[in-house]
């Protein structure tokens, strides 16, 4: 199993996809933090002021906005095997295909943890500089550390969901487009329509918001429950993906 995990890392780090996604995540999170802090406390923005607990909760959760890029990392990690038809040599080398998918889940969870650590550090550093310049840099106390850690965990789970989703769908473009549509169209609609808003807390996005932070959000679960919901989706995707990869013919 360690051999297969290391093989997945070799695959990941011998192309430049990881670099693009990591840089994209860093830029995205830094930009979010800067804009949010710039308009924090302004009346027309409606955002909480720098130095308030709500501001610190929200600003240190901006790393979680990179969830789409971590989802894509996981999707590409799995679907590249089918897109570039390397599934054949991969499954020839390891005919017990379940092990390949499990190795991918482990490899991408660990790689995502390292990338997410970079992202939350960038998140924190940008906020310390910018909010510090505006008068009150958040301290690295227990609450704020927990917020950063929650973002990190959420990003790792999204990468795991991506691997599972990729194993389910196999089509790279389809899985990425489907992921984008789900995250940016379907979930926001469910979140905002009163009739369906009650179900939102049970969805991945609802779990994410409960785990990290929410702003003018709907009814949500407790943070730890949200974390469990999100983890549940990660495991479900991983399990279904593994079962299907084992059963399907590689033609």
């Amino acid at each position: 199993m360690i051999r297969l995990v290391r093989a997945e890392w070799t695959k990941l780090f011998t192309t430049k996809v990881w670099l693009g996604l990591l840089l994209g995540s860093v830029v995205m999170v830094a930009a979010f933090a800067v804009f949010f802090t710039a308009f924090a406390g302004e009346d027309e923005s409606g955002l909480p002021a720098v130095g308030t607990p709500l501001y610190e909760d929200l600003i240190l959760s901006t790393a979680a906005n990179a969830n789409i890029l971590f989802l894509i990392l996981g999707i590409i990690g799995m679907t590249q095997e089918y897109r570039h038809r390397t599934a054949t040599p991969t499954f020839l080398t390891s005919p017990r295909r379940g092990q390949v998918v499990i190795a991918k889940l482990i490899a991408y969870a660990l790689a995502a943890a390292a990338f997410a650590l970079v992202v939350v550090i960038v998140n924190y550093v940008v906020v310390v500089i910018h909010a510090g310049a505006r008068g009150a840099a958040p301290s690295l106390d227990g609450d704020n550390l927990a917020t950063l850690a929650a973002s990190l965990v959420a990003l790792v789970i999204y990468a795991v969901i991506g691997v599972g989703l990729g194993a389910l769908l196999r089509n790279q473009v389809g899985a990425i487009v489907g992921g984008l549509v789900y995250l940016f169209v379907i979930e926001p609609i469910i979140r905002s329509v009163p009739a369906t808003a009650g179900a939102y807390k049970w969805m991945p996005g609802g779990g994410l918001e409960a785990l990290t932070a929410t702003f003018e959000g709907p009814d949500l679960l407790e943070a730890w429950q949200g974390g469990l919901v999100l983890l549940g989706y990660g495991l479900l995707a991983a399990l279904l993906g593994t079962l299907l990869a084992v059963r399907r013919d590689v033609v």
Partner: protein
Amino acid sequence: MRVEVRGLTKSFGAVRAVSDLSFTVEPGQVTGFLGPNGAGKTTSLRMVLGLIRPDSGTATFDGVPYTALPDPSRTVGAVLETAFHPARSGRNHLRVYCRAAGLPLERADEVLRQVGLSDAGGRRAGSYSLGMRQRLALAAALLGDPGVLVLDEPANGLDPEGIQWLRGFLRHLAHDQGRTVLVSSHLLSEVEQTVDRVVIVGAGRLVREGSMADLRAGAASGGTVLVRSPEAPRLADALRADGAQVAADGDGALTVSGRTAAEIGSRAFAAGVELHELRPHTSGLEEIYFQLTAGQEQFAAPTPGAPVAQGATR
């Protein structure tokens, strides 16, 4: 290591791709797996290698199915696909599978040298020519130094020089090193000089399994003899009296079947007939192959006693 295929059957929806296919691949020989495009060769090989689940039947390596092999990379090497991640270098592609199989990373450089790709190892696989891709795929199959090699149309995209090299390489692996080599092709002429045995399939069924020598003998015995004589009608009568089949082509030429050139010559000598030409016209191997695999569409709706059985028992 012996590869045994027993009763493999696979349908994709309503299409029967492979039907009750059985054959054996022996070590120390190059076995050609031949059939026209769409005959089910690739599907069969993928079932042998555990990538496609057969509806029924088994394929084993010294009695063990591929998916149960304790160390598949060191046991079987396969070239099924010449597709690589275009942004990954050839060397890194090989290193991925070194890692997965627990082989030292140096094996990547060793097999690159073996297939003559040392200089291109650092380049992106996406920039490789078709021939280089074939070589890289072969290099990947050789990583674990396996006793069995399975190659699906490995000559596709190779230039004449590359094909020449591949022939020598495969013969070397089988004859000198005693490995089991199974190589598929849709062209008999492509592998004719390389293979020792043939397994011919058509429309997913076995048409013929045997040695190249058998196939050549079949080709020779099915031939006719061309005879030219100024006294053609007299010779024709003499041969017909012996029971040979003779067709007069006019201009003193006869086409005789059912007799060898030697038999015709001695009959002519006995009858005192002057001969100007005596030439065996054996149908080539390629012709035999076409006869065996021609009109395979008809087998899609199998009828009892169809020409398949004839071909298989001849």
